[in-house]
């Protein structure tokens, strides 16, 4: 440690004002503060001691909360492949090869996302002369988890760069952005390259192998939507889906645990809930948003039941909670403190509306099988409005008090 410290201290003058590399100061600083917490002390006036938390620790907590989703996603990527090409049927058969394949597919995406995001972040830090923001630690992990494993790497890079620049840096960096950065990346891919991130063909990695006869790569949401169109009961349609591969692939339990095709990290409601437990336990994410997000989706599912004109609307609302990316989105995307509602009352409304909108988009819109992405982005835009009214109510209470 001491050697490292001395090395840094020796290089430091190079990056300070007047040094040869002064333009790169913030890069040096980022590296230095990553290795060593700075020796800054509190000022003459004001709080003389500070809480042990900092933004780096907060952000790394979110990254750790995503690790269950990531590991599960890797294994599931391999599992879905082996299942589709007919090599294994059992869940835990061929554990090693499955994990290895998942690793081979997922790790490059993670690396590319981090590298692309990190480069943009560094470039802006140098040009705009601000410290490198820790926000991209989370963004770089979120993006890989919401794309299919078959996505070309250049698209991962492009989407990451687009999102970090357009959704974050143009507003001034972490803390100033309006939209969730990772969701923006996904929306960019969705609208720019729909062939690689929608439809029935992209969710299961096949490689150069042919799938077994009768294989369908559709997601549960697509199956449910089509059942609604065809007038077939959704639960029956889900139960009989892909029966060539095995029984009950889209059973409720499987949907909940996440042994289904989909984006890398979003298939497992269970893993998202473990993440939620970490985030809520550590107090990093708002439990109000998470609870109200699930509640909103369930309530809207019930309302759909009441007015059901097709089988999809009549589907049990609990299915909405386990299909698609709702759980992942509500736990990791909706709770981004910067783009979410910032008042405590606002968080209830914000989360609830995300759940409600997700189900509305899923069920009533033929173009978008999944609703969470657009629901989160839409509510990101409306969060300041919600806060505006919550803050206004606070001001009003103060005014009324004065006249009493």
């Amino acid at each position: 440690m001491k050697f490292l410290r001395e090395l840094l201290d020796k290089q430091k003058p190079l990056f300070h004002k007047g040094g040869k590399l002064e333009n790169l100061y913030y890069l040096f600083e980022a590296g230095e503060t990553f290795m060593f917490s700075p020796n800054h002390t509190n000022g003459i006036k004001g709080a003389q001691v500070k809480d042990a938390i900092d933004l780096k620790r907060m952000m790394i907590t979110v990254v750790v909360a995503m690790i269950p989703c990531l590991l599960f996603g890797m294994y599931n990527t391999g599992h879905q492949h082996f299942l589709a090409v007919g090599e294994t049927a059992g869940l835990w058969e061929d554990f090693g090869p499955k994990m290895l394949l998942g690793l081979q597919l997922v790790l490059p995406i993670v690396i590319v996302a981090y590298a692309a995001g990190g480069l943009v972040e560094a470039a802006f830090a140098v040009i705009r002369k601000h410290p490198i923001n820790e926000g991209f630690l989370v963004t770089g992990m979120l993006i890989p988890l919401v794309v299919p494993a078959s996505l070309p790497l250049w698209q991962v890079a492009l989407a990451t760069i687009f999102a970090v620049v357009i959704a974050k840096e143009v507003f001034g960096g972490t803390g100033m952005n309006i939209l969730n950065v990772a969701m923006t990346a996904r929306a960019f891919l969705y609208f720019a390259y729909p062939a690689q991130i929608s439809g029935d063909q992209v969710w299961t990695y096949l490689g150069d192998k042919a799938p077994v006869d009768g294989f369908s790569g559709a997601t549960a949401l697509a199956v449910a939507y089509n059942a609604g169109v065809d007038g077939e009961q959704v639960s029956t349609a889900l139960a009989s889906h892909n029966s060539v591969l095995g029984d009950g692939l889209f059973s409720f339990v499987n949907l909940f645990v996440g042994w289904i095709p989909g984006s890398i990290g979003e298939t497992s409601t269970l893993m998202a809930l473990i993440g939620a437990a970490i985030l809520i336990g550590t107090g990093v994410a708002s439990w109000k948003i998470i609870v109200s997000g699930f509640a909103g989706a369930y309530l809207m599912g019930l309302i759909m039941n009441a007015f059901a004109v097709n089988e999809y609307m009549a589907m049990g609302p609990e299915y909405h909670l386990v299909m698609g990316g709702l759980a992942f989105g509500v736990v990791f995307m909706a709770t981004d403190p910067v783009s979410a509602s910032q008042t405590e009352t606002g968080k209830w409304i914000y989360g609830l509306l995300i759940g409600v909108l997700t189900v509305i988009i899923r069920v009533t819109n033929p173009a978008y099988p999944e609703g969470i992405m657009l629901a989160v982005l839409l509510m990101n835009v409306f969060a300041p409005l919600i806060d505006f009214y919550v803050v206004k109510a606070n001001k009003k209470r103060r005014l009324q008090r004065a006249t009493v």
Partner: protein
Amino acid sequence: MSKLVKLKKGFDIKLVGKAEKKIVDFLPVQTFAIKPTDFIGMQRPKVVVNEGDIVKAGAPLLFDKAMDQVLYVSPVSGEIVEIKRGEKRKLLEIKILADKEISFESFQKYSEQELKSLSKQDALAQLTKGGVWPQFIQRPFGIVANPSDSPKAIFVSGFDTHPLAPDLSFTLKGMERFFQAGIDVLKKLTTGIVHLNVNADSEGSSVFSKIQGAQINSFSGPHPAGNVGVQIHHLNPVSKGEIAWTISPFGVVQVGKLFLEGIYDASKIIAITGSEAKITAYTKTYLGACVDKFVAGNLVKEHTRVISGNVLTGEKINKDGYLGYYHNQITLIPEGDYYEFLGWMKPTASKLSYHRALGLLSFLTPNKEFVLDSNVRGEERAFVQTGVFESVTPMDILPVYLLKAILAEDYDEMEELGIYELVEEDLALCEFVDVSKHPVQEILRKGIDLIQYS
């Protein structure tokens, strides 16, 4: 109608180095100082003494040309040894070398009976001339009150919930008579109520138990329940255009002594606290004392930060610096100017945190006393985390929105979000818990200045 207010929000910072309840004699303090910078809102200080002058305790040293009837007086008798000025001749300190035996200027003396019939005019004249007036603080803005105002109420917080704060029931023991007289004088100054707020969580100070003429309210809950600003918010909040006054219990006792004994008595019992002090106890001295005698030989380590006041709102001073005018304690903590390898991700149970993010384990030991140093523990960032400030501010106020309004210099927004109700100490906890390490108190004062001088 006395009130009981139960507060839930807040956070007690528990530190090592609480003062033992005993009076310890250190070597006698030789010099004392009045620092005009302690008086927020003092605009044009004018010194009325010269170096070499001999003064008695209670003799005027300076006044503010903007409010010239209020005299700032010498806490002790002795010789003016230095009038220290900084850049642009800004007045920094007036130092007095104290006599061994303090002699006092004499003011009009009243008996308890005579106090009952004291007129407001006579009261004001004696208070402003007798040196105790700077103890009256005006809300909004937290500045020295203007004697020509008529406050809607006067608030006294009878307890201090700051980290390692002195126990006022100990430091004010035996002062009941003066405290009562002080309250009697306060009643002349307002048409409203004199509120005396006591701690519902402790036995209650015997000093306050028999006080008459004030409305006694009880507050329970973690810090900042003892902050007078928080108490005002729950009793009779200050809105735009309104004025309330606050005064510390020490100030009330000083007022009482001024009228009953006819002297300006600046003697006070202060607490020597903090993890780096060998002896943590109370000691008797005078306002503005040089801290060298309390610090020298009393340090565990030389590399120590000396704080006049507490760790949340205090001020770093030199080892031979002077106790702030409003401070009743000094806190000695380790300096934190060191690097820590991977300090941002290492699990730690020895550093205090209000949060529970990964590896911050202090929440598992809620009753443990911590040693905290002056390290910032991170770097300043934009506001990211939400809802934390609100959870340590037991007032119906949205601190982050207010701070953003100040940074944007949006006057209307500042007013509407309640800047009139706050001074630095009310948001000091926000500064402590802030993930993004903003200088919250400094920002707030900037906003108050904008409003006050606009």
